Each structure stands twice: as C-alpha cells, then as structure tokens.
C-alpha cells in the first residue's frame, strides 16, 4: 500500500511539474517605444516653434521643429511624423525626416489664424501605423 501511495505521489508531482502555468500579462507589456501603449518617457519633443508671415494674402504659417529620440527606438528604419489637429481630427501630410537617419523634422501648418491656439497630436509613423502620440499646443 505504501508503494502504491509513493508511486501515486510521484506521478502527481510529475504531472504538476509537467504543467506550464506561466502566462503572459499583456498589460505589463508596455516598455517598447513602438508600442502605442508605451508608458515610458516621451521620445518626441518640439524643440522650436515659429510663426512665419505674413505672406501675400495675409497668410501666416506655423512652423514646428520636432526631434525624435532615435536612441530609444530599437529599430532604425525610415520613419515619418504623423501630426493630427486635435480640434478637427484632420491629419496633416506625413512629415519626413530632414535627411535619412536624421532625428529632426520640420512641420509647417499653413494658413493659421494668429492668436488662435492649435493642439497637435504628434506620433511617429512606420508602415502605416503609429506610436503613442504626444500632445503639443502652440499659438501663432
């Protein structure tokens, strides 16, 4: 009887040991800067803001110089910036890098109204998908 009990206990331990119970906590996966759910520090920064104009017709443009910390992005591929007007939800044309491999982007919002604040959602875009966006508000 003792032998049978021992065998049963050994088999039970073997079965329990054979079970892989590790599971992945998806919510805890938030350390990749490419992840839209990334919770780390911002890697998109507006380093300069200017208002150009007036141009013929009394037109003013808002110009932003944006820097992306490429050192935190694990993959270096061709990227663009996606800028969206948060008030209207309208996306501007993708903003390319100033030069291949450059971390600097120049964004121009044409025909802005002086004195009216515009808030932008700025994100890095790769292969038609975007990272977490950073909000920046500027008044021309």
């Amino acid at each position, binding site marked *: 009887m003792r032998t049978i009990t021992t065998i*049963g206990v050994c*088999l039970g331990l073997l*079965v329990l040991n*054979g*079970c*892989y*119970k*590790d*599971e*992945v906590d*998806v919510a805890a*996966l938030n*350390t*990749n800067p*490419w*992840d*839209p*759910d990334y919770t780390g520090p911002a890697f998109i920064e507006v380093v300069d803001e200017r208002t150009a104009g007036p141009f013929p017709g009394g037109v003013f443009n808002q110009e932003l110089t944006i820097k992306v910390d490429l050192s935190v*992005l*694990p*993959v270096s*591929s061709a990227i663009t910036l996606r800028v969206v007007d948060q008030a209207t939800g309208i996306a501007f044309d993708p903003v390319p890098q100033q030069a291949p491999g450059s971390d600097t982007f120049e964004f121009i919002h044409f025909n802005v109204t002086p004195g009216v604040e515009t808030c932008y959602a700025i994100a890095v875009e*790769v*292969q*038609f*998908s*975007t*990272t977490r966006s950073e909000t920046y508000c500027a008044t021309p």
Partner: protein
Amino acid sequence: MLSVAGLLALMSVVLALPASGQQQGRVRLFIDPGDNYAFILDGKYRMQERELSLTPGRHTLTFWAPRRAIVDTAVQVVADSLSTFMLQLPWSAGWVAHTQELKRHRGKRFLTRSLPALATLGLGIWAGTAFVDHRNAYNELNDLEDSYSSLGVPREITSLKEERIPAAQDELARTRTTFLVSTGLFVAAAAGTWYAFRKTAREPVPVFEDKEKVRFDGLVWLPGAQGGTWAAGITVPIR
C-alpha cells in the same frame, strides 16, 4: 492357508502357461500416438510392446494413451504369419472438454490483460503527445513574449498583444487541460492493467484429469520374466 503372495505366484504360473508350446503368429502394432500408448491383451495383460507373438485365434486388445479414449478391439492371429494392426486412438471426451475449457480460460485471461494494457499504451501515447503539445504551446507563448521588445512596427505590436498572445495563451490552457485529462486517464488505465494482471494471476488454471487413465489403470496382468504379477493402478492428481 495360502498367503497373498503365494496366491499371486500360483496365478502367474497358470496364466503364463497358454503362451508356451504352440505355433504362434506375430502381430505388428502401428498405433497413433506411437510413443506412449499401452494396451491390455485379452483383458489380462497390460503391455506396451510394438510387436506381439500370440497363439492363433482371436485376441482382444484394449488400447489407451494419455489424453486418448480407450478403444476395445480384436485381432485374428494366424499361425506362422506376421500381420499388421493399425489404429488411431481418438481424443478422449474429457481431453476435448479440457482443451475447450483451457482455451476459454486463456482467451478470457488474454482479454482481461490485453484490453487494459492496450488502453494504457494508447493513453500513454496520447499523454506523451499532449505533453509535447503543451510544451510547444508554452515555448510558442514565451517566444511571442520575447519578440515584444524586438518588434519595430506599432501595428505588429498591437497584433501581438491583441491577437497572437491571447491565442497562444488559449492554446496553452487547452493543451494543459488535454495533458491533465490524458495523464489522469493513463494513470487510471495503468492501475486497471496492474489490477487485471494481479487478478488473473490468481485465477486457477484448469487441470486435466485423465479419467480414461483411471479406467484403464484397473487391475491387470503385467507379464514378466518369471511369469508376471498382478498390479493395481491409482491416479493421484498433483496440483
């Protein structure tokens, strides 16, 4: 008053007399089975010879062999001639019944042992396969988790977190359930097999009792160099 030994000695002399002083005929016996049959000549002499020298005339022969039925027959012996006698002893009814009972016993024991053993084997293979599937599902989930940090496309990361990892977790849970169920059934089948072997090992095997031998081993005459002796046979089954 004659003693029992003296009476038997006197009878041996009297019974041995008819075999001497006459022209004899020979009979050669071809009996199936040829190795261990015995016969009783004229209801008196128990013999195992392959060839007989007998006085002319009719003689009765009662043949028997282990597991065979007793056959009573007669031969006509002609003086100064050699005749051949052939006989195939049939299987005794007791032996036929015993072989059938033994066959049933073996068949039952084979089924009682082989079915649980086959089930154990099948379930063992299933449990092993389930374990491999479970391990593969675990490795797949780990690989997906490890790939998170190396992905460089947001869309792929979203797909990884919303589709691929949940699917891999579901697969891991499914394979775990299959593994536990198959292992439990395997253990149960193994226990059943062990019990079946133990139970069948204790069942007695049918033993053949040759009742024809008991009949044949009646009181007969055994001829010898000094005339012969009376003998009585008794069968004690040893189990």
